[in-house]
């Protein structure tokens, strides 16, 4: 057991974490990264499409901001959206200066291409593997700067003081579990902890996200007292492979791929889901159409429909869509030149996350968050393609800089319970939050202790937790996790209705109760992934509850969130963020206002049509 | 760092020489085999015949170069193989100088034999 002391501790080494670490290092701070995967294994590497940045003549950050706001269905906060769009060009060029292998124009400049929802072709990209290049380029810079990386080190909990009001609390570090040796380590942060742990895709059985995307950061920050914001907004991608969730890009439909149900009907037209656009209708429309077909008994096995591109001809396919052939054969065992590909909607991106201001700061002093785990909020209720990667670099850098300074900075976005404007009256069918004598503490400890004492204390608690899990001869966490994923997939998917959401809350409660009995059956301290995943499952339960609660409360259709019997956007009632605070184990839902007031203009909610 | 005492001990020099000698050897080795197994049969070889060939300056020079190139190529190959098996430090130096000395002895002996074979009639 060791205490490691640094100025800034960055938890997570995906795009956001790496950028934060570099920024903090440039401020002169002693930075360390703590990550459960080696940095290059982070899921940022999976991003394909690109990075939006207004770089060229004829484009402007204002246009980018306008598009983003419109895309968010007016649930983005203007200061965050504008910051994103203002900083993105500089950050993108910074990547180029660090040697990122962008695709190029004839004149040698960085290429840009058009993307859905954008009024200008402003998406810079590096082939079909933008995220891979972004991740590796930034990791290279981390190596260059000699920033310390503790890899395969699973962060289990934050070390935060125990003040009653989360806004009085201070985060002093975190506790890591060294996966290889089984040792617990305390990490003391002198000026700040930045959480950059990515999205919670594993809430769903079917997702484009990696197995490591368990949203640990959100759950830890949540329990430490930072509220989770807008968690009900989850983007589903309509064409993912059924056995793995691997994404089949829109390119296939763009080139003329056709969706069929098991009756051989081209349902997008024949069943009137999108009489004009057909297969090319927007993501959520297609996703809902597919689920409807399956629900009405016209699906194939695995709840899939078929995406057929054979009629495009072998030549055109190998020419334009070669990587689809690899994806389908490698991950589904289907040769798309010979047979149609089975596809179904899969979880893709979480718009919500840890509430932060435009500096990446949460309401807890010394605790920052950036990337998919955070909600600044720039994506509101729906993220535009190519807007997540700029979010990583823009807010990663800001969070890193501010964490290095160690001083709270002024911001336009307010955070924490004091920003509350309205209390919610949604009634959950079951009790929420902590169950009995929960093995997990809130992360809260001692009031007026030195940072080392706070970390030490948390370390002790976490050690007990590990010992308990190791000693318990209980059920396998995987059973609980799969029940959880099942109910989320069944009830909190692209179609949501009150009964289903309530059912989900009940099921989540049941999972919580069963979780009381989990045990780790692998007795080894060496590379005990059983233990790690057991802890992750707990984190998933916490987030599932928040997500479902938000979805139950929000009785409207906005962005990615669709509700039966509430199929329209209700601006008078719902132009507000849903916030859920852990509240020491007794979760509370409340609302804060959306900020539509920009630097120079007010963003008027308009009908989102394209 | 590789031993950069002189520019000639750089690994790329040996690598390159290995290829250059190989190219040379392809020709000469083929010629050698053809001559001594197919044109003249090995079982018919006598010193008289050998001397007749050896005393032509072109043939003599070719054979000596053949020997030098072959020795360098072969011994350098052996050294590389041993280095790849992971010999280090002193063992490596011993092997290295051992091989160099052996090669020099081989070449010396070879030239001596070749000289004898000319029967002193080298014109």
């Amino acid at each position, binding site marked *: 057991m060791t205490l490691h002391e640094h100025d800034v501790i960055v938890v997570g080494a995906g795009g956001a974490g790496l950028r934060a670490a570099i920024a903090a290092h440039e401020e002169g701070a002693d930075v360390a990264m703590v990550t459960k995967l080696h940095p290059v294994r982070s899921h940022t590497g999976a991003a394909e499409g690109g990075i939006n940045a207004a770089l060229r003549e004829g484009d402007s950050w204002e246009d980018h901001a306008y598009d983003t706001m419109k895309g968010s269905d007016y649930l983005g906060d203007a200061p965050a959206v504008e910051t994103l769009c203002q900083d993105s060009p500089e950050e993108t060029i910074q990547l180029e200066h660090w040697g990122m292998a962008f695709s190029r124009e004839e004149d040698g400049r960085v290429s840009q291409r058009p993307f859905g929802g954008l009024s200008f072709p402003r998406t810079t990209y590096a082939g079909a593997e933008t995220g891979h290049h972004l991740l590796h380029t930034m990791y290279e810079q981390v190596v260059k700067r000699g920033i310390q990386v503790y890899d395969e080190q699973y962060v289990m909990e934050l070390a935060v003081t125990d003040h009653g009001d989360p806004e009085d609390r201070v985060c002093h570090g975190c506790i890591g579990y060294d996966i*290889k*040796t*089984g040792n617990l380590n305390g990490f003391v942060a002198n000026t700040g902890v930045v959480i950059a742990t990515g999205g919670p895709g594993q809430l769903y059985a079917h997702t484009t996200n990696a197995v490591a995307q368990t949203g640990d950061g959100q759950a830890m920050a949540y329990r430490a007292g930072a509220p989770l914001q807008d968690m009900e907004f989850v983007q589903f991608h309509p064409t993912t492979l059924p056995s793995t969730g691997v994404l089949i890009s829109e390119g296939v439909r763009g080139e003329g791929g056709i969706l069929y149900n098991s009756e051989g009907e081209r349902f997008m037209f024949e069943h009137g889901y999108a009489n004009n656009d057909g297969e090319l209708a927007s993501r959520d429309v297609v996703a809902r159409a597919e689920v409807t077909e399956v629900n009405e008994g016209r699906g194939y096995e695995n709840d899939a429909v078929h995406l057929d591109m054979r009629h495009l001809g072998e030549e055109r396919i190998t020419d334009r869509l070669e990587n689809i052939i690899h994806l389908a054969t490698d991950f589904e065992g289907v040769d798309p030149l010979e047979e149609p590909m089975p596809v179904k909607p899969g979880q893709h991106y979480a718009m919500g996350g840890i509430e932060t201001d435009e500096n990446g700061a949460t309401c807890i002093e010394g605790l920052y968050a950036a990337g998919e785990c955070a909600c600044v909020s720039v994506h509101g209720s729906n993220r535009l393609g190519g807007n997540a990667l700029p979010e990583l670099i823009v807010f990663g850098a800001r969070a890193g800089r501010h964490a290095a300074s160690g001083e709270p900075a002024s911001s336009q976005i307010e955070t924490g319970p004091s920003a509350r404007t309205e209390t919610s009256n949604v009634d959950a069918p079951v009790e929420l939050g902590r169950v009995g004598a929960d093995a997990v503490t809130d992360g809260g400890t001692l009031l007026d202790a030195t940072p080392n004492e706070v970390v030490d204390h948390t370390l002790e608690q976490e050690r007990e937790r590990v010992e308990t899990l190791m000693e318990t001869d209980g059920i396998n966490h995987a059973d609980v996790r799969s029940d959880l994923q099942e109910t989320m997939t069944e009830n909190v998917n692209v179609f949501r209705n009150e009964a289903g959401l309530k059912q989900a809350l009940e099921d989540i409660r049941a999972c919580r109760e069963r979780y009381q009995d989990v045990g780790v059956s692998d007795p080894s*301290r*060496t*590379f005990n992934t059983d233990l790690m995943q057991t802890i992750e499952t707990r984190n998933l339960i916490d987030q599932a509850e928040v997500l479902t609660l938000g979805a139950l409360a929000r009785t409207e259709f906005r962005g990615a969130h669709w509700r039966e019997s509430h199929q329209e956007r209700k601006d008078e009632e719902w132009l507000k963020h849903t916030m859920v605070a852990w509240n020491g184990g007794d979760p509370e839902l409340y609302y804060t206002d959306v900020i539509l007031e920009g630097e120079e203009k007010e963003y008027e909610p308009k009908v989102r049509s394209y | 760092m590789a031993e950069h005492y002189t520019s000639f001990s750089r690994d790329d020099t040996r690598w390159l020489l290995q*290829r250059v000698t*190989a*190219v040379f*050897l*392809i020709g000469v*080795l*083929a010629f050698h*085999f053809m001559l001594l*197994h*197919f044109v003249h*049969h*090995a*079982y*018919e*070889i*006598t*010193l*008289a015949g*050998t001397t007749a060939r050896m005393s032509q300056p072109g043939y003599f020079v070719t054979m000596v170069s053949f*020997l030098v190139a*072959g*020795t360098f190529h*072969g*011994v350098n*190959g*052996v050294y590389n*193989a041993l280095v790849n098996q992971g010999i280090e430090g002193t063992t490596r130096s011993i092997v290295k100088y051992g091989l160099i000395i052996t090669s020099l002895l*081989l070449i010396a*002996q*070879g030239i*001596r*034999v070749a000289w*004898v*074979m000319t029967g002193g009639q080298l014109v």
Partner: protein
Amino acid sequence: MSQSYDRGLVENFGRWTEFSAGMWAWVFHKFTGWVLIGYLFTHIAVLSTAIEGASMYNSTLQGLEALLIVRFMEVGLLAVAVFHILNGIRLLFVDLGVGLDAQDKSFYASLILTGAIAIGSIPTFLGGI
């Protein structure tokens, strides 16, 4: 505490059944190279008998040539040399960056050609015995 398990040298060569073309080529090239340098030493040694005079030289050579086993070894030597030459040419092309995509085919071709030449030369080598 963790410690790790080193599977040892078996790893390196115990897996020969799973070797691919390039690996076999490497193994054979090594083997043939060693045989050739070994032969070079022997060869010079044998030829050194010339220093002792013509009769010694002639009788040594012809004595050796009279042995059937030596004749077969010569065929073997030819095969070794031919393979080394052909694969050496293959490697030279690889060094030049030519035909890397056909590296496995060129290896098989070297093998077949070596076999053919060796067999074809048997009559010559066994002649006059």
